[in-house]
């Protein structure tokens, strides 16, 4: 047995003296105020609310797309987008947000979701692209990309912001990671919806105007989550 494998003797840690009575009384007084106002939403109520917020964004974008063109390809994209959004949202809720902090999926699993799913989405976009322009030509010719990106950002911000608000102050342990997952939900909701409404099938357009916004929402969600999701 090496020295690192030897069991270490337990050390006797003495309890420090408690805080002063004045401090305890002050805490007691502060925490007894407005007790009746404290009851918040239960986890399943928050989950339902976040599904409604994010689902409304997807539904609005899909409806917009279907109003423009009612072709088989558009319907297929709508179904795929809605199904993809549903699966991702469910995975994020089950592994992360809807379970109590400390009883959630492992940190590795949740990071894999937050970073892996946008990459899977990039692959999906690559496979669904009909053409690929040289990057220099795309930058000059595709005047539609900034508008499309802006729409994705606006709708994504509504979905991600709504999700972050619904889960506000619920995660003291991994607020950044939970924020990244909320960002992923919002970003994917918008990207999946805009995929139906957008007429372009060019690869660079899909990657930059649709796909990159999902990654951007993961990063912004991480930063905002550290502020909003921590108590």
């Amino acid at each position, binding site marked *: 047995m090496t020295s690192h494998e030897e069991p270490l003797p337990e050390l006797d840690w003495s309890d420090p003296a408690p805080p002063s009575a004045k401090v305890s009384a002050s805490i*007691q007084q*502060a925490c007894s105020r407005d007790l009746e106002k*404290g009851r*918040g939403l239960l986890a399943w109520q928050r989950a339902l609310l976040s599904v409604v917020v994010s689902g409304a964004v997807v539904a609005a974008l899909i409806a917009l797309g279907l109003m423009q063109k009612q072709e088989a390809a558009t319907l297929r994209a709508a179904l795929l987008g809605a199904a993809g959004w549903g699966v991702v949202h469910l995975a994020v809720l089950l592994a992360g947000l809807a379970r109590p902090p400390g009883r959630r999926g492992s940190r590795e699993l949740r990071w894999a979701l937050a970073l892996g799913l946008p990459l899977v989405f990039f692959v999906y976009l690559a496979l669904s692209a009909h053409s690929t322009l040289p990057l220099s030509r795309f930058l000059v010719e595709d005047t539609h990309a900034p508008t499309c990106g802006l729409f994705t950002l606006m709708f994504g911000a509504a979905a991600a912001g709504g999700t972050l608000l619904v889960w506000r102050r619920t995660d003291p342990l991994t607020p950044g990671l939970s924020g990244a997952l909320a960002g992923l939900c919002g970003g994917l909701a918008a990207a999946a919806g805009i995929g139906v409404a957008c007429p372009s099938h060019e690869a660079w357009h899909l990657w930059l105007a649709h796909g990159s916004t999902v990654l951007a929402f993961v990063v912004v969600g991480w930063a905002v989550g550290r502020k909003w999701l921590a108590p």
Partner: protein
Amino acid sequence: MVRAVRVGRLETPGAPPAYSCVWPYTVEMSASGDASLSGAWLGVGPLVTDTSLAAATLEELMERYVDGDRAAFEALYQRSSPKLFGYLLRLTRNRERAEDLLQVTYAKVHRARGSYLRGAPVLPWFIAIARRSFLDERRSAKVRTEDLSADGTLPEPKRESDDLSTDVAEALESALDSLPEAYREAILLTKITGLSLAEASEILGATPTALKLRVHRGYLQLRERLEQFKRR
């Protein structure tokens, strides 16, 4: 005559340990051995003698507190504050700062109680809030006033006392203070506060394996320093 629920530390000199009172109440013993209590929370709340509260888990107490039960908060405070205060005291090495941070922590808990997801382990929840408050406070304190030492580096935080240790308990605390922060926090959370490796690793943002290694290495250093103390 009321017998105190034994959940706290004995504060009144002369009262036998068998009748430890719920801190910070005072206890008086009658000739027959019964205890009477006074000074309940400096008049702010009722005494916790409810046996259902004494038997409840921290999670159950938290849920009752969220539902507006003041007595549940008292029991929750009595049970959680010693660990939380011990953690903050060892983190800050300063009693006043630890007390300030304890107040900030409970204020944040109170503000966020509606967001408590039922079933979540309470102590890691509290400790994570306390740690975040400590880091925020340290960051703002560094921005405000931090004089560089003669060699141009940031000074180590001052300890309450730099006297040579006189007994093993003091030597242990002093050895803990001298450990690198990563080892100290790992030991603080797992060995002293009593969190599981999984809970502590969530709080510190490390894997359980890495945390186990930190605890092991920290303990080796502690043991070495204790042996040096015993040889003195």
